[in-house]
């Protein structure tokens, strides 16, 4: 904390963070180019460039880039960024480094909502999943919130409540899927699909939710910086704790529900990315959330790219791949630097 006493050092830290953020964004750009370049249909960079500047609707390579790989890339970026931000907010709010959207019931709630939607309404289009995913996510998070002591309990109680509600909702989902084969078929395609079926129509339909979620997340970071010092301290700093928590909660639910509606429940990204982000950005939640968004996008784009390569059978789920890449990184991080107390 010596940096706070030396203004020059703060400038240095800012510079370093900006530099690091620049590097991460550059990495994301590089990964994006690779994601457009590699896949089952081989093509060169000239094809990719031409597909942007001189799109030919009769050229198979142009179509593959513009209508298959590009929406897939955008979907991976949106999902990764959302899960990264949601994870960072979740860990900040609960002050628990183990929290992630999967652990607090939001993903399970959103998934259950989608399962019920497929089963009762016969809906198969991901863009229509958003409202039920939102509803399920909200319901689950409300249950967790009240079981967890309605904001007055300890973060540990909140986590336990989340684990219980997650398990319950997942069990109900699985039970329903066992009963209905038709639902299972749609659900499996949706869950396993990852970014396989990504389309711009779905992305555009969900874009407002990603936008609102990101905006809420940005607003929430300011009060989270105070909340992270403990609720009493936060109150002392003039933060309305209940309102701040509501804001954070809303941001998490919207981000997660939009992601679940688009690509199914993706675990682990929300857990690991904030740790990486904290390692680079330090404890300031504003930076943390920004880095989490960029790193989350990098992780899922890389995972989706690797999952498509032939050595992994050509169709490994991005979520599984993200855990395969992220797991060792997290282990290295924890062994090398320890877990930051929140």
């Amino acid at each position: 904390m010596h940096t706070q006493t030396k203004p020059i050092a703060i400038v240095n830290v800012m510079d370093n963070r900006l530099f690091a953020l620049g590097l991460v964004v550059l990495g994301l750009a590089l990964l994006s180019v690779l994601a457009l370049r590699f896949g089952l249909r081989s093509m060169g960079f000239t094809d990719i460039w031409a597909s942007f500047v001189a799109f030919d609707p009769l050229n198979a390579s142009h179509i593959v880039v513009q209508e298959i790989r590009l929406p897939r890339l955008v979907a991976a970026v949106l999902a990764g960024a959302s899960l990264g931000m949601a994870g960072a907010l979740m860990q900040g709010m609960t002050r628990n480094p183990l929290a992630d959207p999967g652990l607090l019931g939001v993903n399970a709630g959103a998934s259950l909502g989608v399962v019920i939607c497929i089963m009762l309404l016969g809906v198969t289009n991901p863009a229509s999943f958003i409202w039920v995913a939102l509803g399920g996510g909200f319901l689950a998070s409300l249950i967790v919130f009240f079981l967890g002591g309605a904001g007055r309990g300890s973060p540990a109680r909140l986590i336990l409540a989340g684990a219980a509600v997650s398990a319950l909702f997942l069990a109900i989902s699985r039970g329903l899927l066992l009963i209905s084969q038709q639902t299972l078929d749609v659900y499996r395609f949706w869950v396993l699909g990852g970014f396989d079926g990504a389309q711009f129509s779905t992305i555009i339909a969900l874009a407002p939710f990603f936008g609102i979620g990101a905006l809420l997340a940005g607003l929430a970071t300011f009060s989270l910086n105070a909340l992270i010092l403990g609720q009493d301290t936060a109150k002392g700093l003039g933060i309305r704790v209940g309102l701040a928590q509501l804001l954070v909660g809303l941001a998490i639910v919207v981000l997660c529900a939009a992601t679940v509606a688009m690509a199914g429940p993706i675990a682990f990204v929300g857990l690991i990315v904030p740790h990486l982000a904290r390692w680079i950005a330090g404890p300031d939640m504003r930076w943390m959330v920004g880095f989490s968004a960029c790193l989350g996008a990098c992780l899922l784009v890389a995972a989706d790219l690797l999952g498509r390569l032939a050595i992994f059978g050509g169709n490994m789920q991005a979520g599984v791949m993200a855990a395969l890449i992220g797991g060792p990184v997290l282990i290295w991080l924890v062994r090398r630097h320890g877990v930051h107390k929140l």
Partner: protein
Amino acid sequence: MFRHTLQQLAIFSAFASGPCLADGYPVDISHQFGTARIAEKPVRIVSLSFIGHDFLLALDEIPVALRRWYGTDPYGVWPWGHDALGDATPTVFYGEIDVEAVAALRPDLIVGQWSGMTARDYALLSQIAPTIAPASGTGDYGMSWQDMLRVLATATDTTSKAVEIIDRIETRFADLRTQNPAWQGASAVMVWAGQVGAYTEHDIRGHFLENLGFVTPDAVNEMGSIDRTYVFMSPEDLSPIDTDVLIWLDAGGSAAGLNDLPLRPLMRAHREGREVYAGPLLSAALSHSSPLSLDYALDQLVPLIEAAADGDPATVVPTSDAAGILQPDAEG
């Protein structure tokens, strides 16, 4: 011929004097996991094949239990099997093979030629009753409908009926081959809409096309194996299924997804109106390819293939038009 008469004699003598040594039993049926010895005519048959009940029903053998595959029928029997099933109420299995439930039914024959049963399943099932697995070298889902019917007929002493059915349907296929010389050697493939996947020549649906004279493209066959007769297509390359006749199968609701396949408009099959959309009932009839469903499948499919195989988008394939998957200028 001699055996045929013997069997009729056996039936006669069975009626005349009850169980005796003169009937065709015991019969031995060899298959990929060994040999099933059937001591006398089975009366409690458990069918574990997803489509096997159709075959048994065609032979007038009503199983005590069958395996529901998909669809809404409570017994898993599709419309073409309703008459043969009559008022019978067999036990219905759904999902994985449940050995305990099979044992509880005290079967005297277990059949699973299209069941995906594993060696481990077989080891357990064959202790309960003689169990018929797929024939050697055909893969889990590749035994031809004729062979499946013949084996079941041998097991249930109904060979004459099976011969009659096979003759009739094979003649129908042969007539269609003669009437459609243009189909002979042309390429065709059946592909599920939804998550796009094609059937290879080793699959029951590949056999169906072969029976009409069509050839499954090598590009599809090479992606599979004897035990993997269903291969996924990457939306980045649909060329393996760009055939002279392309049949889209659908269990319901996947037709709209076809219009979301970005490369489909570039396919010759699409541009030349060579696509046939098979609705849920026709898709199921093709996927059963059973003595009961084949007639329905041919009734429905042959006129559609005729409209598609000419390669002229002006001769519209009615089901494809109704499903809304034709190219915009051909639909008007």
